[in-house]
């Protein structure tokens, strides 16, 4: 049986909702209760703090020795020192990948700044988790951010065919629009954190999208893992596809198998 893994979690405090917070221990407890044995994790504070290194270091210490967590460093390529910090994170914090939150950092994922990150990652064979969006844009009262749309994501996938990419936050319609592009790309995964419908979401996706391109991702602690898990567990897609979404596809991309 495949190990279940969450491709998209944070620990820490999301700044716009007091309830959207989780410590390492709370996160681990939640994962254990749901049978999730692995997760890509980053510190939430690293998204929102200018001096993000401290948050990365604190997380690395907190999860030291915990094989369940795969630390991805949040990178803001608008900071002139991002390459130095990313190099340090690889060498001293042993991060397993990089994470782009362009909507909060004010650059285009298909622009020149992000391209530097993809080149950096390709040269070091690091996977990159790319957020199209995080919070529901309709609920952004305090800070309105742009979102990366399908055309921008398509441009990244086409321009960097050698990179291992996890695209987080795509809607159902986005995934249908990307299906033809990603169906043949074994090094690209789309996460499930924004798939709230329609009825029989995964069965309908399967009509266009190779389900081996999907990875369970929750966006914990902004969202609940139970929502996509309930959809995946109850989808009539066959056990191989289900196990792939729940962990096998991510394990393949991360070369954990």
């Amino acid at each position, binding site marked *: 049986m495949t190990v279940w893994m969450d491709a998209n979690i944070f620990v820490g405090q999301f700044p716009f*909702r007091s*309830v*959207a917070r*989780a410590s390492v221990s709370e996160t681990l407890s939640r994962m254990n*209760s*749901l049978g999730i044995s692995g997760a890509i994790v980053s510190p939430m504070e690293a998204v929102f703090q200018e001096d993000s290194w401290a948050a990365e270091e604190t997380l690395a210490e907190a999860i030291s020795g915990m094989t369940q967590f795969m630390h991805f460093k949040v990178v803001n390529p608008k900071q002139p020192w991002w390459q130095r910090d990313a190099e340090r994170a690889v060498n001293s914090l042993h991060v397993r990948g990089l994470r782009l939150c362009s909507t909060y950092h004010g650059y285009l994922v298909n622009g020149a700044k992000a391209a530097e990150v993809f080149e950096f990652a390709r040269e070091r064979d690091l996977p990159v988790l790319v957020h199209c969006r995080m919070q*529901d*844009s*309709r*609920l*952004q*009262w305090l800070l*309105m951010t742009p979102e990366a749309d399908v055309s921008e994501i398509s441009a990244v996938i086409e321009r960097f065919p050698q990179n291992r990419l996890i695209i987080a936050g795509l809607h159902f319609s986005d995934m249908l629009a990307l299906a033809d592009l990603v169906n043949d790309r074994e090094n690209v995964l789309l996460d499930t954190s*924004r*798939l*709230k*419908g*329609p*009825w*029989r*979401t995964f069965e309908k996706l399967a009509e266009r999208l190779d389900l081996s391109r999907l990875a369970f991702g929750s966006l*914990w*602690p*902004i*969202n*609940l*893992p*139970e*929502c*996509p*898990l*309930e*959809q995946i*567990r*109850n989808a009539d897609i066959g056990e191989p596809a289900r196990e792939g979404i729940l962990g096998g596809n991510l394990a393949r991309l991360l070369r954990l198998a």
Partner: protein
Amino acid sequence: MSGFLTPEDGPLKVIDAHAHIWLSQAERDRRELVEALDKVPIERIYVSGLHGHDQSPDTVVRINDAVHEMLAADPRARGQAYLNPRHGQHALEELRRCHDLGFCMVKLWVATRADDPLNFPVYEAAAALGMPLLLHSFVKARGQLLNESTPWDVAEAARRYPECTFLMAHMGGDFIFGCESVAELPNVFVDPSGSYGEKGMIEYAVQRLGADRVIFGSDMPGSDIYHNLGKVVGASISDAEREAILHRNAERVLP
């Protein structure tokens, strides 16, 4: 409860207070709702028809007829009569027609805001017929639709008509705005349908309104009921509160 709807847990009893048949795809929607009724399973489902933001009187009749077709075919379905309060007397006639056909609730969407005086005759007629009202409500930081009700529009209507029972859809869109707006109004219930499964949303509603004022809804077939069940299954609440949300409140409050 382990937190999952697995067979070994035994099926949870579920009543869904918020589902739709879109007139443009009525046959497919009816089929999919029946699929969900059988698969989940759902003991009872409340269904309203929709089509565009502002419809002609004839179209409203066709919308409700599309729902009635399901009511006639499946005893698990209960009808919510869609009305456009801009139609004045016709809206009231359509309400009575639907009531006679067996519809037991009223559905208002984005033809008018909840506190629009055009709605007042509908509220009075619904109260007289004992029909609770499902009111769409979604407050947005951007993209608010014309005549789309905010939670405080719903609160204003509920203050004016304490004899009416209101079910505020989507917890008002933003669960904090929604719960805070109607917290002091015992004739307003909320459903968590449609939106993403935010951590803490159900707990917030239980804390501010009480578990007895949260009624499960899915917003199918545009939304996946399993995603919406995950909100309740994943909430840090007691089993009794979970059961109240999933079916007991609907059994108590909805006809």
